[in-house]
């Protein structure tokens, strides 16, 4: 009788210890649109689809990691490139879902659109178990993106002035080719060499392809990379001007590019080149 009681007590004790030792993160949830994702459902999906690059500990040290560049995201750092939230804050569940769904063009992170929305929501929930920050911090408040201003040549020209004044060309280069004076020495937050976006390649931005996405990129910064947030130094309407100018650096047929091409053919002599010579003129 005594041994039976002792055994039951021991079994209870062990299971209590075991329950306490279970990562409470598995209770993590995500809310993506109308769906609720669950980390315990996301775990087997992660093991099937993600673990090869992102690793069993979610630290980006999967067995594929040594062979690919850029390196897989380290979820333990809770630093994410593509957010709707200010620099230094956690992304929303929708941000994470967008990243998983869209993938990261020009990297080894594919688009996971073929998975169902529920599966992706479950994966988002599981990804959040890798860093303790998700328990202590709330996601940032998404930045407010005002309605886009009209695409006019004045907007494009003002955006060009901003590109000069904000010194974007120092990394992105005067024509946005990613060849600015500081480009060669850029490293990401893990000390890996990284190149600034080259607007002339025609590839999509890593964080989306619409004008809204472009607005969001430089107003929230690309965390974990040299790309800072300009939210404190660019006014919202000015930001739209910069978006319109940046479109003229790309190869796609856009209204912005058409306006710029017409203008530059008619006013070629008035256009000051972008770069250090203009800056030393006392900007």
């Amino acid at each position, binding site marked *: 009788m005594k041994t039976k009681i002792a055994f039951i007590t021991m079994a209870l004790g062990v299971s209590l210890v075991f329950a306490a030792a279970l990562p409470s993160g598995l209770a993590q949830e995500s809310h993506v649109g109308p769906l609720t994702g669950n980390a315990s459902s996301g775990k087997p999906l992660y093991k099937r689809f993600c673990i090869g690059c992102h690793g069993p500990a979610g630290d980006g040290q999967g067995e594929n990691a040594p062979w690919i560049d850029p390196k897989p995201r380290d979820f333990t750092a809770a630093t994410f490139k593509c957010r709707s939230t200010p620099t230094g804050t956690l992304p929303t569940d929708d941000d994470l879902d967008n990243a998983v769904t869209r993938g990261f063009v020009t990297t080894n992170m594919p688009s996971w659109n073929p998975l169902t929305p529920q599966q992706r929501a479950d994966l988002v929930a599981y990804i959040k178990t890798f860093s303790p920050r998700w328990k202590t911090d709330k996601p940032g408040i998404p930045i407010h993106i005002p309605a886009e201003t009209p695409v006019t040549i004045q907007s494009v020209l003002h955006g060009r002035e901003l590109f000069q004044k904000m*010194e974007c060309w*120092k990394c992105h280069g005067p024509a946005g080719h990613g060849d600015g*004076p500081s480009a060669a020495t850029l490293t990401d*937050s893990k000390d890996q060499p990284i190149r600034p976006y080259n607007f002339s390649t025609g590839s999509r931005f890593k964080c989306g392809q619409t004008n809204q996405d472009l607005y969001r990129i430089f107003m929230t910064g690309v*965390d974990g990379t040299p790309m800072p*947030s*300009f*939210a404190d*130094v660019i006014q919202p309407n000015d930001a739209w001007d910069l978006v319109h100018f940046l479109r003229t650096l790309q190869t796609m047929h856009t209204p912005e590019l058409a306006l710029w091409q017409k203008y530059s053919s008619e006013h070629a002599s008035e256009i000051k080149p972008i770069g250090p010579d203009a800056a030393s003129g006392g900007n």
Partner: protein
Amino acid sequence: MNRKLLCLLPAAAVIFYAVKAGAGAPIPPPAGGTISGKVTYTGTPPKMKPIDMSKEPTCAKQHTTPVMTENVTTGPDSSLQYVVVYISEGDPGGAASTETVRYDQRGCQYLPHVLPMQAGQVLQIFNDDQTSHNIHPLAKVNPEWNKSQPAGSLPIDTKYDKPEFIPVKCNIHPWMHGYFVVLNTSHYAVTGPDGSFSLKGLPAGKYTVTAWQEQYGTQTQEVTIGSTETKTANFTFKALPY
């Protein structure tokens, strides 16, 4: 009658001396003990290299002699500069100081090179240069953020809530390196060119003093002091030529 007047004498004396003290007498030193000392090195430290700022002419022209790298900054008598010495244990702690600490980007350098502060203390970052900088503290425990600060823009106000040694860099100017040292304690010092430090105003007790140098890591010592005692704690780091 006389007895009553005599009883008033001590009160009168107190009032007399209080008035005398208020009228321009020297302020007494902060109560408490002091731990002071020097941080030095043995061996051969690496030679600091001159920084080429030609890619940023607005900064290069501010320096008549080249600016040197600062990862191992030495002084006379084998002293080590920019070592943060602080109480890591034994300090009962308290609310963060309400004073603001200041960080400047000037001449494409971070001034000071190493900036200690308390967790929760307000930090103000200024760009004094004619060029843009991006201020990118590479925090791992605290949130990592990255903000552009063009010439002439307002200072950035921020704070860090958790203790951490945070490397700071500017991606536009890759030679810029600095540190935010976020500590729980208000008892800290950074060694100057002579390697000396002084931690004042410590209540009597047993303390662990830690010295941190960005390349050589940390060393600790235990020091017990009385309420008005001054004790010496010296630190010696082993320097390697690379």
